């Protein structure tokens, strides 16, 4: 897989909050009164759990649930791996917010013309390479950008080299079908509010299983209902004596078979 990804190693994070500030600046977000929560003015947060800091942001899923549920296809997964939102298409049904397994998309509740807000995986070309605002400013290299498969290798080799430092799990490798953002942590992910009960395959399958059956339901149903009404109407005609005797004999047998 050639898509880009971000590896965030929580054990290296010192909680300086530079990434949050950079994100605000680079994405020209309005001043944010509540830095503790994701919101329509805040694409990422740095929080603390006991001795460890950790981040929250859109995970940029490999097979994004938000993109699959949106009735107008306002979300797209780009070739680079970013999950982007197009406000011009959106009609504001908020199904994406309901469905996102990581509870990421945020809404502008107090606007008459609201849009959905979330991290955009803001890739910038700097110093001859690619960086997101948050990966670029991180003084500790706790957030770094790279090819996803490469980052996965790094993550696992870190776990192997320091088994005492990490829980043996790369969050996002397969969760919800895998995500472009990969996480390493020293404390179990549940404690940080990262769900461990997510399907290990793509979430959109959950609804696609049902949706993909629709054409056959329509066909079968149409034929059944049509046939049913044909048989019944025929019966009524027979009862009211509209059909001739000899036709009747043949029909009776057929109907018995149909029942």
């Amino acid at each position, binding site marked *: 897989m050639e898509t880009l990804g971000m590896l965030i190693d929580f054990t290296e994070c010192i909680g300086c909050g530079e990434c949050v500030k950079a994100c605000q600046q680079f994405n020209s977000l309005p001043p944010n009164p509540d830095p503790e929560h*994701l*919101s329509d003015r805040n694409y990422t947060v740095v929080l603390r759990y006991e001795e460890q800091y950790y981040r929250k942001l859109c995970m940029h899923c490999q097979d994004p*649930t938000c993109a*699959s*549920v*949106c*009735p*107008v*296809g*306002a979300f797209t997964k780009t070739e680079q791996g970013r999950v982007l939102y197009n406000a011009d*298409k*959106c*009609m*504001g*049904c*908020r*199904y994406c*917010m*309901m*469905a996102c*397994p990581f*509870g990421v998309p*945020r*809404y*502008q*509740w*107090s*606007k*008459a*013309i*609201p*849009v959905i807000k979330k991290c955009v995986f803001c890739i910038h070309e700097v110093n001859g390479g690619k960086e997101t605002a948050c990966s670029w400013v991180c003084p500790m290299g706790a957030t770094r950008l790279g090819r996803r498969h490469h980052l996965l290798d790094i993550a696992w080799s870190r776990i192997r080299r320091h088994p005492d430092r990490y829980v043996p799990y790369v969050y996002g490798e397969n969760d919800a079908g895998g995500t472009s953002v990969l996480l390493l942590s020293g404390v179990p992910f549940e404690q940080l509010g990262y*769900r461990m*009960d*997510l*399907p290990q395959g793509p*979430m*959109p399958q*959950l*609804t*696609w*299983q*049902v*949706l993909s059956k*629709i054409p056959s*339901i*329509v066909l079968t*149903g*149409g034929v059944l*209902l*049509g046939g*049913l*009404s044909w048989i*019944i*109407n025929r019966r*009524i005609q027979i009862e009211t004596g509209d059909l001739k005797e000899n036709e009747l004999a043949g029909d009776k047998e057929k109907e018995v078979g149909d029942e």
Partner: protein
Amino acid sequence: MSSASGGLSFDRPRLWMPVGMVIFLLGLVLTFQRFYFGLGAVTNLTDRQPWGLWVGFDVLCGVALAAGGFVLTGIVHLLNFERYKSVLRPTVLSAFLGYILVSVGLLYDLGKPWNIWHAMIMWNPHSVMFEVAWCVMLYSTVLALEFSPIVLEKLGQDKALRVMRAFTLPLVIAGILLSTLHQSSLGTVFLIVPGKLHPFWYTNLLPIHFFLSAVSVGFAMVILESFVSGWLFRKSLETRVIADLGQFMVVALMLYLIVRLQDLNFKVGLLNIFDGSIESWFLVSELSLFLLPLLLVFLFRNRMKAGVLAISAASTMGAVVLNRLNVGIVGMARSGGFSYFPSWREFALSLFLVTGGVTVFILCVKYLPIFPESGQEAISEKVE
């Protein structure tokens, strides 16, 4: 034709006029607030629970309660049970109005309702919501067409009327298929939230649950509508015919409960539903309402009185309403950190929409040939 209004007793509706006016004026003010200041100004919705009363009640309940339309047209036109024909028109009318209410409710709930037509050109066949949108759109058209003969009859357009009548059966079949699809798909909508929707309600059988309960409540609505029109306009079906419908309803309910309870037992265990949590209270109330009609019918099986039928149907309606609210709101509350309870404004606007619907219904009854001309006698004759 206008003699259809002859039997109307308008003294009862008149009592409600002042109340209706207050609701109406309040509704207008709140509508302004909603569209001028945004959803946050009138609703208590949060980022953690982005769907509330308007999705749970206006849309989910609205669609379920309008199921009488496809259930009854199916019985009358497909299975040829002629004796229910006299409630066909009011049922189709209320289903049609129901879907209009759902659509209007959706316009209030959507953040950018002026983009609603995007669903027609920006296809995403992977989205359940996309499928629901199309089915609701098409089915509303079907209902409009099914309703059109009534208007044509009033206008005396005999030629057009004959053309429309020729299309009755295809329309009915299309209506049943479309209803089957979107009634169940409203359940499919919630398949994408495992772990968010409480396990009392989350199951991969949600589409089947939604469909079967919609059929049950479809019958219940026909029964209730018959009683209400009897009370309001002194026109209703014979109790015996309603009792027939009650039997259909009970069979549908039993089917639903077998599937539902087995599934529930398999997923969480029937004893675990009494765990004393908030969800438990809501689930147990919901199931009791579903079971009450069965109990009543069992107790009174030899003497189905109108009162018993009315209570059974009302109980079924309450059960389905509670079920949709449970799936849409209560079951999602825990994962949303219990951050949402509907504001009075949300209640008021929902009430505003319902009041509007009822008003239009009454006007239609007054000006269109909805009920058979000579009321009760004509119906009784047909039955015998």
